[in-house]
């Protein structure tokens, strides 16, 4: 029963994360949404495998601990990246165009000066 309740809770949080990821352009919002989804994932990892003697299986617990540390590392790095991007371009969003091929040549010319950033040192 407990497991089933928390599976539903995880599903709801996962859905909220997906929603947040889709609707918000702000990178920090996206990171918050991803962190929600990660929490939902961790909850599932603990609840779904059968428990042993009333405690969750120690192996998934260790995996989740590892996952939490990896999540905070990734988030910290992503935040640093976001601050830098914000300083350079003045807004904390990524270019909305997903695939430059869809825009063809026009796009390439437009971003060419900054995209060809590889200059002689």
């Amino acid at each position, binding site marked *: 029963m*407990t497991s089933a309740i*928390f599976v539903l809770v995880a599903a709801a949080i996962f859905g909220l994360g*997906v929603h947040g990821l889709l*609707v918000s352009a702000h990178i920090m919002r996206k990171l918050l949404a991803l962190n929600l989804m990660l*929490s939902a994932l961790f909850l599932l990892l603990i609840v779904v495998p059968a428990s042993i003697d009333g405690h969750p299986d120690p192996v998934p617990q260790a995996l989740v*601990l*590892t996952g939490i540390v990896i999540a905070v590392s990734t988030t910290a790095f992503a935040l640093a990246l976001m601050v830098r991007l914000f300083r350079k371009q003045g807004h904390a969003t990524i270019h909305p165009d997903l695939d430059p091929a869809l825009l063809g040549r026009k796009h390439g010319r437009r971003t060419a000066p900054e995209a060809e950033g590889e200059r002689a040192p």
Partner: protein
Amino acid sequence: MTAGVVIDVLLGLILVGLATQVAIGKHLFRAIVFYVAFGLAMALIWARLGAPDLALADAAIGAGLTGALMMVAFRRLVEIDPKQSQALVTRGSALAVVLAVLAAGMVATIGLTALSLERQPGDAGLQVLATLQETGLGNPITGVLLVFRGFDTLIEMAVLLTAFIGSRVITTRSRLSVTTVSGFELPLVRTLVAVILPLAVLIGMHLLWIGSDQPGGAFQAGSVLAGSGVLLLLTGTLLPASRSRALVRLALVAGVGALCLLVLAPLLQGDGPMAYLGRGSLLFAETAMMVSIAVTLTLLFAGSPSLKAGSS
């Protein structure tokens, strides 16, 4: 039985409510605050599920440090450009709602189907409990993290180090003002630090020491210490420094380095890699990991390669 169900449902509803605020709350800053609350509620749920190690870790890392990192990043955005920092370019759409509901439905179906199958305790989990005695440890999770799957932990520490080095690549070019984190000079805060800091160090040491037999360990201890590092930065007792020091660099690599030794040292005796060397070796590795976690996370918060004593 029913009381338990009521508690579960209540906790679940609180968690979902907080997650809603994080995902679709209007203001970014509020969303971050709710994320911290979400992490704390998550910790309660871990405790309720009988996973105190996760409860400690999620309260310290998930809620505390992730929240602190988000807040300081938010503050930096505000400093750069107060108007743009909050600018919410939300594209609220029916499609997003449909996709979110679909995703939630999918996860629920997968989870419930998995629960409905005939479930046996996992082989690996049973073997961990059966073999734990050989290692002399009392906490099976510490056993998995440092003995049976210690190699995962080594790479995880390397990921933490990589995140730090990666943010150095980015932040060396942008000068983050020192005042970003130090700010308030209230007498009460001073006193608070004087009380909390020794307590945090004690708690950290305690968590590290008992971690081999009871809930706790290097991660929890390291993040409690990192929390006090953040507090010291906030009160100006510690300040970000731009010149990197050998001691700080040593602290950064200590965790990965100690785990590498744990893998390679047994080879000298002709044993296989990471052959178990006893509890002493684990305590050594965990101390190094605690130091690395504490220093790395504090520096990630400060956004600087090093720290120096404040002028107090």
